[in-house]
């Protein structure tokens, strides 16, 4: 049997190759229920914890009494960002742990196709992780984040894109520095958490720190969320500014990944990558 050979050069971009990588990560999730359970576990625990904290503060804080769900909404949206970043970085780490990076890059797979597949998988993992937690908050605390309506979709988009940017930068660092940089996948995003205004307005931060906070897309999301929940005001300007910053960070994240990919090729790191 001789297979008909495709002599023509493959397309520079192939949705089929992106799909193949998504399929590879899907197989991995399908074959491991602890992975799926772990995705759901942390966001659910966070919502339960912050739900009780909210109930307590509702009777002790006039600010919080204005909008009871603001802490739960904050934790859910923060988890969208965290899961999105983790979705990219952990999917890439799966290749490193499996010593599969070298195999992948001798196929026609292009680095940007891998990046796109990591982004697709991140989206899937984020939805698997955060949807059950969001649904659980409805019967437990009579709070539905879906009452935010269409702005919720805009918040989700801004956060997911920033998560991809961070995830790509972290994956690039892992490609360059190996598994020594593995913990960045879990730690990097938390360095930004105090600046994001998840649970408090950006104005709470010291004056000198506020410009740094406003340089991060997620700060616009959390301010926008409070504007809707407390002032019943949709701030489209915040969404647009968040999206503009997202575009910048996505370019930086992708450039970091591609830059480290090139360094890895120059230093011969791709074939050695693994445990």
């Amino acid at each position, binding site marked *: 049997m001789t*297979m008909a050979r495709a002599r023509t050069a493959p397309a520079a971009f192939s949705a089929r190759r992106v799909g193949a990588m998504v399929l590879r990560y899907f*197989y991995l999730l399908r074959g491991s229920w602890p992975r799926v359970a772990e995705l759901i576990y942390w966001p659910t625990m966070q919502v339960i914890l912050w739900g009780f904290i909210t109930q307590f503060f509702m009777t002790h804080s006039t600010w919080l009494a204005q909008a009871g769900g603001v802490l739960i909404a904050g934790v859910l949206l923060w988890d969208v960002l965290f899961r999105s970043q983790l979705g990219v970085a952990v999917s890439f780490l799966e290749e490193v742990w499996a010593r599969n990076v070298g195999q992948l890059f001798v*196929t026609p797979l292009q680095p940007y196709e891998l990046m796109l597949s990591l982004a697709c998988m991140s989206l899937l993992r984020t939805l698997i992780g955060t949807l059950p937690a969001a649904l659980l908050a409805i019967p437990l605390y009579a709070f539905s984040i879906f009452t935010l309506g269409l702005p919720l979709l805009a918040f989700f988009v801004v956060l997911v894109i920033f998560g991809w940017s961070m995830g790509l930068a972290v994956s690039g660092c892992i490609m360059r520095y190996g598994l020594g940089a593995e913990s960045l996948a879990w730690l990097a995003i938390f360095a930004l958490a105090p600046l994001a205004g998840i649970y408090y307005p950006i104005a709470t931060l010291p004056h000198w720190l506020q410009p740094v906070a406003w340089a991060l897309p997620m700060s616009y999301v959390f301010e926008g969320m409070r504007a809707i929940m407390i002032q019943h005001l949709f701030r489209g300007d915040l969404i647009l500014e968040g999206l503009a910053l997202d575009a910048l960070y996505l370019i930086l994240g992708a450039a970091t990944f591609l830059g480290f990919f090139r360094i890895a090729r120059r230093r011969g790191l791709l*074939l050695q990558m693994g445990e």
Partner: protein
Amino acid sequence: MPATDIPQAVVRLERLSKRFGAVTAVDDVSFTLAAGTTVALLGGNGAGKTTTISILLGLLLPTAGTVEVLGEDMLRHRHRVLHRINFSSPYVEMPKRLTPLENLTVYGHLYGVPNVRRRIEALAEELMLTPFLKRATGTLSAGQRSRVALAKALVNEPELLLLDELTASLDPDTADWVRSFLERYRARTGATVLLASHNMAEVERLAGDVLMMRAGRIVDRGAPSDLIARYGRRSLEEVFLDIARAASEEAAE
């Protein structure tokens, strides 16, 4: 490109060098591989075999030199030919948690294989993978895993096959089976094979041409029988030892 336009030299390396800081892993290497030949790359540990293969695959960028594979400049247009190449090496593995069927499906799509399911069925039959096609790859024996790795290396029916330590860690029976399979594959498809190995009997059996590497350089080239005659030895292993020991003596001086 029509099939008749296959360039005579499937691989053409010219003045290839790779330095890692002060260490020169490949030093001014030039060679060509003619279409349909099986060529072995021999040398001791650190001779530069894996580095050369990594450069050929585009996984590693050379410090100097040019690399042409199937008529394309690998440094600039590797994506144009990667679907016509494949490789197998013990230094990389198939994802262990996926089954061979899942792994081959993913790689079949990555290589743009036209009918992936049919291709996997054919490979499963040829390489006797069917009984464990749906078991996690990590639970398979070394012999079964090497057959799966070979199936992955052949999933796109490559015109150029790069094999690094093909039968390392296999028992003699399985290793012999793998060599026989490779001989049949090459005879049927006319593929060009570059084989890096430490197993001299394997090289004598499979390769018509041998490139001897030492300290990053090609120090000799010829058919196994010609090399044996030229060095006045009885086997390729003795030739290998002559060359490797000469390297040790050079280093001592």
